[in-house]
């Protein structure tokens, strides 16, 4: 029964709606359609009653006095309880969709998103970086871990029915699974200053083959985790933190197998070592000090960009979790339980923003660029890295 209902709802399309390009879109549209049916019915019913009364009971004599009527408890209860019950159906339906959108699946292809006045910066785990464009394959679950370098932004793709605020000082997550190849608007939905309406671009949803081609294009990039490893060496983290299995405990906690563990903290209690805790421990180390260590770590606030912090986290995550050991390859290729991708080796390439990239904005006097076919490397700046097929975190599925 519920299966039939679900199949029916997946077919629902409403007028004046953006394309349905994610698994959420038909669900959200169905709820939207239900609410319009309700709204239309109630509004028309009440309006019709009012018009009917206004005509039928119009004043015929200047002095007429209608018979007064007291209230009716039955009627009052009826029109209190029935709307309450109907609104509870909306509530439950809304909650069920909300939970699906907000519970990002663990098994997903992760993309780091950093908002900045007024652009969106993306980094794939495989190393590709993009500005104002995001390339994703059809049928893959894509989880976005987002933060911002300045003010609050909000990542919004109408065709996916997905929106999430991007808040300074913390990570927010959202996810989607695109169902249809195409080029879809991406907006900033939270007012962020002068060029707010220019802070947008496109999500390019590609067929899996085209996406693989796109990944392979370009001159090769370093994976996020590998860039994080480099930072780990350059910034002297290694002098206190052990990152290899079986190594000696340094002055700071060993990072090998740390991710996802329950960490006891000073003053009692434990925290789960996740992205947010790692970020806090890098930028404000004294906030939740691991049990048994001295508060000697300096803050890296202002010394690392949000993207660099994300790379360090990708590196720490690549060191595996307490439950799963990863293999450290020569090129730094590791896997992680949460679907972190294998690292690509290769030369260090930094990605700058080219004027080309800036112009991929849909809004404004400048015409948007014509849609690019699959595998356009121009938008990534540094192109893709080779991704060992075996460690590909998210084998793209066909819808």
């Amino acid at each position, binding site marked *: 029964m519920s299966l039939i209902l679900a199949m029916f709802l997946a077919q629902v399309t409403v007028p004046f709606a953006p394309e349905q390009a994610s698994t959420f879109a038909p669900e959200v549209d169905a709820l939207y359609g239900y609410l319009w049916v309700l709204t239309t019915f109630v509004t028309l019913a009440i309006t019709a009653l009012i018009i009917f*009364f206004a005509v039928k009971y119009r004043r015929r004599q200047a002095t007429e006095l209608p018979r007064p009527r007291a209230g009716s408890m039955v009627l*009052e209860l009826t029109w209190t309880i029935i709307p309450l019950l109907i609104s509870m159906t909306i509530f439950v339906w809304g909650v069920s969709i909300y939970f699906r959108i907000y519970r990002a699946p663990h098994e997903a292809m992760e993309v780091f998103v950093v908002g900045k006045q007024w652009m969106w910066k993306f980094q794939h785990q495989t190393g590709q970086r993009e500005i104002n464009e995001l390339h994703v394959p059809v049928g893959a679950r894509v989880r976005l871990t987002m933060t911002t370098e300045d003010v609050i932004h909000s990542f919004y793709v109408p065709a996916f029915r997905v929106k999430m605020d991007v808040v300074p000082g913390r990570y927010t997550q959202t996810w989607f699974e695109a169902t249809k190849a195409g080029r879809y608007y991406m907006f900033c939905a939270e007012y962020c200053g002068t060029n707010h309406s220019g802070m947008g671009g496109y999500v390019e949803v590609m067929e899996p083959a085209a996406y693989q081609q796109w990944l392979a294009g370009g001159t090769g990039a370093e994976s996020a985790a590998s860039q994080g490893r480099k930072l780990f060496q350059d910034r002297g983290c290694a002098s206190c933190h052990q990152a290899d299995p079986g190594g000696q405990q340094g002055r700071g906690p060993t990072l090998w197998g740390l991710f996802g563990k329950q960490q006891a903290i000073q003053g009692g209690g434990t925290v789960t070592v996740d992205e947010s805790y790692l970020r806090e421990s890098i930028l404000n180390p004294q906030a939740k000090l691991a049990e048994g260590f001295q508060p000697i770590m300096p803050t890296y606030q202002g010394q690392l960009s949000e993207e660099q912090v994300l790379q360090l986290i990708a590196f720490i995550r690549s060191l595996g979790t307490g439950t799963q050991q990863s293999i450290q390859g020569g090129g730094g290729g590791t896997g992680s339980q949460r679907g972190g991708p294998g690292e690509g080796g290769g030369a260090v390439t930094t990605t700058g923003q080219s004027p080309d990239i800036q112009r991929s904005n849909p809004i404004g006097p400048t015409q948007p660029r014509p849609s690019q076919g699959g595998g356009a490397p121009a938008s990534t700046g540094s192109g893709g890295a080779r991704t060992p097929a075996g460690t590909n975190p998210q084998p793209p599925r066909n819808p």
Partner: protein
Amino acid sequence: MSQNQPTPEERGHEWRSRFPTVNYLNADYGIKSWLLTKDHKRIALLYLLSVTFFFALGGAYAAAIRMELLTPQGDLMQSHTYNKVFTHHGILMVFFFLIPAIPAVLGNFLVPLMIGAKDLAFPRINLLSWYVYMVGAVLTFAALLAGGVDTGWTFYVPFSSSYSNTYVILAGLGIFINGFSSILTGLNFIVTVHTMRAPGMTWFRLPLFIWSHYATSLIMILGTPVIAITVLLLALERLAHIGIFDPRLGGDPVLFQHMFWFYSHPAVYIMILPSMGVVSELIATHTRKPIFGYSFVAFSSLAIAVFGFLVWGHHLFTSSQSVYAGMIFSIISYIVAIPSAVKVFNWTATMYKGSLSYDTPMLYAYAFVGLFLIGGMTGLFLSALGLDIHVHDTYFVVAHFHYVMVGGTVMGYLGGLHNWWPKITGRMYPEGWARFAALVIFVGFNLTFFPQFLLGYMGMPRRYHAYPVDEPLWQVLHVASTGGASILGIGLLIPGIYFIWAMRYGRFASANPWPGTGLEWRTPSPPPTENFVTTPVVTWEAYEFRPIEEMAVVGPGEPDQPVGGQHPINRDAEPEPRA
């Protein structure tokens, strides 16, 4: 002084001669008698002037927004200018028009009259509240003139605290000070309703207008301090970087949103509840029936005031608050919708077998019920968690709250102004023009804001200076909206003109032109300074309609001071041909 200029005495006489009797308008004259008045009715008129000014100014900004959005390119003004324009529109309309409009104008005028009191409990504080309002308004206005603010009326941090280079603190100071005016008015109303009701005016004989103003006053005195604290913290953050909201200093930017909406969502009810009170009066008066389910309508106002404080988090469904918090705020948002629905059903039931007029105030009441219904129902869309993710911060939200604020509050305000204009000025407005204007406003309003629901669902974010050029349908809808706004603007100008005209040339109004049952109709139009010649004793229930002879002016009903041998008091100056 030249020979031709009248002396102040002569001017006063001329002013007096416009009315047949001595009343609050001509009891005294000269600018000082207005600026130092302690008469709630005169203070209401001071407020009327001020809020009308800010409504017009806010409307001008709205016109600029609609002009810009005619084309997808941001070609009329620069982005920075556009951002200031929508910010100014929001700040002026919310803080200096919508919040004070009905309570401070109609409420001030009518609360003492309706309960049979001579004035509010604290007349001096009442005058003070107008001055506080003006100081706040002047400071905010100065901020706009000095260069403006570009944070949006919501002042979200860290943009407003660390990034905006505009006059945030000055504008915030104006809002901070203006808040005290709200608090003083609310306090005054509560004390007045508790202590100054006429003999026999029990709580359940109060007009529903009083109940809704009582509920509004509760929100004002409980909620407004929170916005004051929030704005103060914002200023401290901006000046001294104290680190309440700045994550780099250990603060939390989302905390600001919680604090801001803790006031600003109940503030929505500060705007709509008084309008609901007005509509209850309009419907009772113009159907000649007691409001169906009086006590349900009365208590629904209190329920809205209480539950209204528990739903602020529905503005934060995408702000990274926890999913469980989202669930709680969502379900309470549905619960708070029920009392509003109950009111709509009761109003509709009141019309059943009534004697329904087509006078202008009733036209606005019809419009209110229909438009508020759409505004309220679309609120259910926004409270649905999974759906709100898509429509949050889009034009769908813009359309929704304009249906509530303009379709609700402004319609109620206009209906109330028409209904009590005869009482306020002693003159009738021109009925034909007024009906025409109501129609124009209704059509213009729907054409302006209905397309915005569609735009929002298609993905148009709010506060956008420009939109994609390759979406022709978006432009079509924006052009429709701008066309509607032009009609709405013209529609709103018409009452502005005929109200001024009617003050001088309108027909004299009788004490009770509709007729209504409230005590305000049982004193001359315009009322004397003390409101009633003798203290009324209430022996009838709320909305107890009787033949007009039995609803005469309380007291001796004879002129205390006839002026220049004109018409005797309390009689129609001219017979009133009414439909």
